[in-house]
Structure formats: C-alpha cells, structure tokens
C-alpha cells in the first residue's frame, strides 16, 4: 500500500462532551475509559497499527489530563504533538489551526473508536470521508452520495433523509485550508468542517469509504456498549496473583500486583487492572472492566459495568449495567437497580432533559468521588454528579447535581 511518508494523524480531542456529564465534569470526553483504556488510547493504538506514527492532538478542555497521560508518545512508540484550540469554535476552526504543520493528513474524532483496517483504507491516496449506516440518523450529519462520490454533507437534522452518516474520520490534503478560511459561522455559532467540505465539493471530488468497525459514544451508557464490544475481542492474560479456590472462566485479564482472593468467581470477558484486591467471595460477571487500585469485596456482584480507578465496593453490593467514576466508595449494602419491574426501556434525566436510553437494563452513571451510605438504594438510570454524598438508607433516582448531599 502506498502511504505518504509525512502523513500525520490529527485527533480532535478538545471537546468537553456535555452529553457525557457527569463523567466529563472531571475529565475531557476523550479520556473516558473503555475496557481499561481511555477512548483516545484505543484510537491511538488502532491508528498506529494502521501505520501512522505522527500525531497531532488538538486539545482544549482539561488539556493537562490528555498531556499528562500521553506525553510525547514514546510509550506507544509514536510522536505526539499538541495544539491547544483556545476557544472552542468548531471543527473547521480546530483543523484550520494546523495548516502550517501538515500536508496530507487524516483527521479523526478522538471520542469515536475507529478500527485499524478502516483507518488503513482511509489512508489510501486521495481525499476521503468515512461513512457508516446507522438505524437512527437523527443525532448525526447525513451524507448524500452520487456513485460512491460524496455530493453533499449535512449537519444534524430533525428528519434525516437517509441512514448514511458522516463517521467523523477524514483524509484531507492542503486544499481544504483554502475552504476553511472561507467558512462562515454556522447558525449554532461554530465554524463547521462540513461547511468547508461542501465548498470543496464544488471544485474537487471526495471518495467515500464505508467503515466496518465504528463505535460512537454520545451518552454515558454508550460506554457500556463500547466496553462490551472491545471486551469480546480480548485474550486471557493473568499477571496478578490468584489464590486457591477461585474460579476463572473465559477470557479474563488480571493486571500486575492484583490479588484474586479465595471464593471469587469470575466469568470472562472481564478486565481487572493493577493493584486491585478482588474478593474473597465475590461474583464478577461478563463485560466488566475494573480500573487500577480497586477493591471488590465479600458478597459483591458486578456485571456489565465500568469501574474506574481507586473505587471500592467492599461488601454486600450489587452493581449492574453501570459506570462508576474514580475514587468512589459504596457503603455496605448499597444496591443499584438495573431493570424496571415492567421491563420497559429506561429513561434518564441528563442536564435536566429526559432521554430514552433505549436500554432495558441500565443502572447508575456515577461521577468521581461519590460516597454512598450503608443500605442506600439507587434506582435504574440514575445520574449522580461528582463529589456527592449519599446518606445511609437514602433512596436516590433521577439526576443529582455535583457536590450534593443526599440525606
């Protein structure tokens, strides 16, 4: 395959991700963990495996977290440069800033996970845009096609005319910058790359590439789906210490210095990070990712969930179909409901707006530094803001703002 030597990969990683509240109150969207790594790291790894070595991360919101985690990229054997977007003025503004640093380049949205082979295809000669077909195109920008060539690209619309959408991955060359400069602010007040592309389309042709792997995370519960998808592909790897009388079935990853104590029953696929203490006597079910320095104690059951670093469920807890932030501690007996008695889809209130999660099973989305009291009960689809205290025997549901005390 012919790849230009100086091809760079530009990753858009500046966004706050308001629809990912409360998890993004304390981290940028691209640093949300899925299967033990930030979303951005999965992209970096896939792009690297596709043959890209030089990266430019466009950062903004809580940029130091991205910079501290990835550094100059040596750990991944790639080069990473950073550009701070300053004002978040839209995708065209972000890409316009890198004019002096690139020739032929790939742009990908850092908060969507792209597959290695798709990135490889996009890298082939000529400008290209990645597309996918989805069931509900309302949340995305529609793309019109004419014999495999792109004819027009739209922003989100209420009544989408087709199911083919812009996946958020592009192959551009220097020509795009001429059109970015001419791009005017859109009705929502941003400079959109789609407007620049439409102007470019009047002069040039852009190929379309249908992606085979694509996982978009818009709302917090999409992390659970993305997590499941990646976990399906993992292989067994045990680096920690496993006690006698434990049961480990299927593909389970156990990190360094982690101890699995007697009586633990772990059903893969499951990822457990480093320095954790698991058990004794706990039940960890499929599609669970546990971060570093966590403790899952006696008589706890965890299922289809993401538990971030330094969080504990030490005794008598049930956590299902949930995302638990960093530094959380569940009091003894804290249980999380994840299924309505009428088995209907679960609605969530996020940023004051009611949203159908389209999931029959959904537990809690818990921000960082939350503590719950003993025997507290958390209803299905509850959002708990960071730095919140839930009192003993409290009964919580709906949306709880950050730094609240629920008694």
């Amino acid at each position, binding site marked *: 395959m012919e790849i230009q030597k100086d091809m760079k990969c530009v990753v858009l990683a500046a966004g706050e991700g308001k629809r990912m509240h409360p998890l993004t109150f304390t981290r940028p969207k691209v640093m949300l963990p899925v299967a033990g790594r930030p979303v951005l790291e999965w992209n970096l790894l896939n792009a690297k495996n596709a043959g890209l070595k030089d990266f430019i991360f466009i950062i903004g919101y809580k940029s130091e977290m991205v910079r501290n985690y990835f550094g100059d990229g040596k750990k991944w054997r790639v080069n990473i440069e950073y550009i*701070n977007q*300053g004002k978040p003025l839209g995708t065209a503004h972000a890409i316009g800033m890198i004019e002096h640093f690139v020739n032929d380049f790939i742009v990908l949205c850092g908060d969507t996970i792209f597959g290695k082979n798709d990135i490889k295809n996009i890298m082939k000669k000529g400008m290209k845009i990645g597309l996918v077909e989805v069931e509900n195109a309302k949340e995305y920008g529609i793309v019109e096609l004419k014999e495999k060539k792109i004819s027009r690209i739209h922003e989100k619309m209420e009544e989408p005319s087709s199911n083919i959408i812009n996946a958020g991955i592009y192959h551009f060359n220097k020509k795009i910058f001429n059109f970015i400069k001419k791009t005017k602010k859109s009705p929502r007040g941003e400079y959109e790359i789609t407007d620049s592309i439409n102007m470019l389309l009047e002069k040039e042709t852009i190929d379309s590439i249908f992606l085979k792997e694509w996982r978009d995370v818009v709302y917090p519960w999409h992390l659970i789906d993305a997590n499941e998808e990646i976990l399906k592909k993992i292989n067994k790897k045990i680096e920690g210490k496993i006690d006698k009388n434990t049961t480990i079935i299927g593909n389970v990853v156990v990190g360094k210095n982690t101890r699995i104590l007697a009586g633990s029953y772990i059903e893969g696929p499951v990822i457990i990070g480093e320095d954790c203490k698991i058990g004794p006597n706990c039940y960890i079910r499929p599609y669970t990712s546990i971060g570093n320095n966590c403790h899952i104690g006696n008589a706890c059951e965890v299922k289809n969930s993401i538990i971030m670093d330094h969080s504990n469920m030490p005794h008598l807890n049930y956590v299902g179909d949930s995302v638990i932030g960093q530094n959380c501690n569940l009091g003894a007996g804290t249980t999380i409901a994840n299924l309505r008695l009428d088995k209907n889809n679960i609605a969530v209130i996020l940023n004051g707006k009611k949203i159908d999660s389209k999931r029959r099973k959904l537990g809690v989305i818990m921000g960082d530094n939350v503590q719950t009291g003993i025997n507290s009960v958390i209803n299905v689809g509850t959002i708990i803001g960071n730095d919140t205290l839930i009192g003993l025997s409290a009964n919580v549901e709906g949306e709880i703002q950050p730094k609240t005390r629920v008694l």
Partner: protein
Amino acid sequence: MCGIVGYNGFRDADKVLIDCLKRLEYRGYDSAGIGVIGKKLQIFKDVGEISKLEQKIPHIDGCIGISHTRWATMGAVTKENAHPHLSGNKKIAVIHNGIIENYKKLKEELEKQGVKFRSQTDSEIIAHLIEKNYKGNLEDAVCSALKKLKGSYAIAVICEEEPDKLVGARNESPLVVGVGDNENFLASDIPALLKYTNRMIFINDGEICVLTKNSVKVFNENKKEVKKKEELIKWDIKDAEKSGFPHFMLKEIYDQPDTINQAVRGRISEIERSINFPDNVERLLNNDLGSIYIVACGTSFYAGLVGKYLIEQLTGIPVFVEIASEYRYFGTRKETSLVIAITQSGETADTLAALREAKNAGCKTLAITNVIGSTATRIADGYILTQSGPEIGVAATKTFISQIIVLFLVALKIGSIKNEIGSDESYQYMRHLRDLPKQVRAILDRSDDVIDIAKQIKNSKSVFFIGRGINYPLSLEGALKLKEISYIHAEGFAAGELKHGPFALLTKNTPVVAIVTKDFTYDKMLANIGEVKARGPEVIAIADEDDTEIDKHADFVIRYPSNSTMLSCITITVLLQLLAYHVANLRGCSIDKPRNLAKSVTVE
C-alpha cells in the same frame, strides 16, 4: 493599573491578543491598543473599551504582537496616550503597566537629544530608550534601557528588525509567561491566557524574558540565564478572572498590599524626606487654610472621617466632614476653606453637586478619585488619583484603603508646609508607610483566625462596632461592610456614646466588636468593654498584637501588627473587611453584587 498581553506563535496574533485582553479588562478600560508585526510593524489604538477597539480594528496580518488595556495614571485618556508606544523610527513598539518615577528627568534628557514625544505618558520614554540602546539585539537593548528606569513596570516589546522575538520584563508589576505548543504568551495575569494554555512561568522582579515560537528564555539583570520551572494552573476559566479567589471582593482585599504601594508610588521621596504632588495640588495645599471640608458619600465619607483625624492630628487645622447630599444644600462655604471631595468613580452625583457648589462659592477645591478624566477631576482645581485600579466588587475595599493613604499623604504635606511636623517625624511616617504592605500581607496570611470569629457572629441578628478617635469611623466602616454584604443589621458607635442610648439594644445575642489601640484612650476602652459585657453580649476585640491585657477583658481577640497608632487604621480596616467577607460567605450571600446596590451612584 493596566493590562498587557504578548503573543508569538502560529495563530492570527490580532485575534489572540484581543481575546486575551478582554480577560484583563478588570485592570482598566479607558483605552486599548494593539501592535502586530506582519510584513512590517503596525499599531492600532483608540480611546474606549476593548470591545469598541475590536469593532473598529482592521485585520492585521501577522503571528507576533502585543496588546494593552489602559487605566490612565499619567496623561489624559487620549488616543495618543494609549499604548503601544512607538520609538522614534517606528520600528520598536512597547506596552507598559506601572509608573516610571524618574520619567521627568529622563524625558528632559531625551528631549535635549532631539527626541520628539508623541504622548504625555511616562511609558513612551521606554520605547525611545530602547531605540537609543538598540544595536541589533532587542533583549540587550531592553536590558540597557531598563537600567535607567526607576519605578514599577511590566513591559512587552517587539521590534520590526527581529520579527521572531517578543521580549518582556518586570519590576513590581505583574507578568507571567504562558507556555504553549509552537506558541508562547505574555500577560499581566494568568486568567488572560487560560483559554490557550495552563502552563505558566512566573517572572520575578528584575528579570527579562525572551519568547520565540518554540522557546522561552529568562535572564536576570546581568543577562545571565535563569532556569525556570513551568507551573500547571488548575483553575476553571470561570474562577480565573478572580485569580482563583471565589469572589472579586476577596481578591480585592488580597490586592491591598499592592494598592498601598500604588497609592504611595512616586509621591514620597525618602531621601529628601518630602511628599510630592503635582504643582497645582501643592499650590492648593500651600495656602493659609482656615479650615478643611471633606465632602463624600458612603464608604468615601468614612474615609473622610478617618482623614479628619489624620489631618487634624498632623496639621492642627479644623476639619469638617460632610455628607455630600447634605453639604450641597446646607453646608457653610468660606473662601479660606479647602473643600476635598472624595469619590472613587469621580462621577458620584451628590459629591459632584457639592463640589460645584463649593467652587461657585469661591472655595479652593481638591478631588480625590480613582478615575482620571472623570467629571470630578475636571471640576476641581486640582486632583489626586488613588491609583488603585478598577474595583469590581460593589463593596469598596481597596479604594477605601487608598483614599485613606492619599489623605494621610495630604495631611503629611500640609503638616510639613505648616511646620507642624518636623522632617524627622515625617521620615518616621514614611518608613511606617513603607512597612505597611508587609503588615497587611501578614494579616491576610493569618485570615483563618478571622474565619473562626466569623463563625461566632454569623447567626446574629445585630452586631455593634465601637471605637474611639480614629477607630470610631473604622467602626462605622466595619458596620457598613458587614451590613451591605451579609445583610446582618450592624451599627458603629463612638465607644463613649453607647451609654447614651444604644445600651438599650444590647442583649446576649448582639455581639460587640471593639476596636482597641494602645493610645491614651486605652483604659477608657477597657472600661467601655466592661460596661458592654455587664449587659450580656460577647465582645470581640480587635487589638494590637503586643496587647496582653485585652485577653482578660474580651471573649475573642483578633490581632493586628502595628508600629504607628495613626497607620493602624489600615491594618484594622483589612481585618474588618475580612470579617464582613467571611460572615457573608458563611451565610451564602451574593458578595460581589449585594441586593439593591450599585457600584457607583450617579443619581442624586
């Protein structure tokens, strides 16, 4: 106070410079300007707020530049006086925040050498000095030029001949470097840059920094490179304008050590042991003054009451302090009197009316204000600026302090003109003034003590403040601060007056704050505290740190460092401000915008 920004990178410099400058608007907003090097050096400046400049300015191509927002302290608010200032050959542009003390001498020297000045500012001389010293290397020229300057400055300089270089320097005015990727920044403070980077390098007094797109080098006065560490700032942008403080009021309280320096700067010569004001002000003070009237409203009125004690003590001239809205209708006006109008904004309608009345009656008039070019400065025969920079919190803090300092300087000046105080005595006071910022800083460092006291009184329905002498107006100010931001009813009384009425209101639940200084009324104050305690209230004493006796009399004691009874009014005020702030904060009040109040009252 002014705000400065510098940029060297890959973005359109004009956009970045104006964007960052907007976040410095709190430092001044009477005029603004920008200079960018594209093909050549271009500048654009105008009178008015930054948003006005932004609308008018044409796009200037270029990726390196400087911008400035001005709060005039020398030279009127005009386009010529706005920054940047250009050197004679128009190849070097300079922006400056601070005050050059020896500018007169330097200006005369430069004029002798044939330099033509375009503005009335002290800042322009820096541009000319740098040009005189320029031999192909900008930082060397800056270094040599700065050696001639006395005073405070934070500057940023660009030069058409070296379009890849941005040079900054500081002495007693703030300056930080923001480190980016393929770009670097300079600014008066951190919030201006946070949108673009949160990695900062702090520049110290006497240091010069040289910024290219990819490097930051810092040198000391002797051109030796200094190794600097990057610091990571973790504030949210929301908190940033308050420099990490939760409220503007608290930020402004913590600004006060600098405010004191600013109010004194350029006005004291310790070597000559003299106080220097502009000639027309000195002429006003150098009259055979029969009496002095101070007219003002609100907090400025209390500053006037403090001024009364200071001026009477140091000059022997009787001083009458009048509320402006009363004085304009009922006050007596004698041609032998000096009428001093105190107004922070220079636009307070009542004070302006009183000032006009006095002037029409033939009195000599002097305005003490924070805003150059304001109506008060135009009406009065002379004016003295408090030089405290814009104040955003509605409750006046740093401007009150600087008004008192200016009144103290006026008292010293008249006192020495009238030979009421000798040069030794006035030198003592100058030294005390010099130590004052340090003492205020010490109080701010121990503000936890005040929080403990604030917890004691936060649930009270009513709080009384008492004091004698200069501490009486401080009681009034302490009560005003408390009531305006915490909504607790508060009253200040002369300590001797309590028994003539207010005693009836004392209960267990009305704490009394007693301000005690170790002067000849000390024993009387202890007696007053005893009287109060006998009626049940808890007494919180604000006392000298050497005062060991007071613990036996009061329930709680807050201490202030002091070396002069007269200037202890400043340190005590800071304690009273902190107390009001923390009470209001514990009660969850809207501190920066109290209900029903506006910053400057321009209606009668």
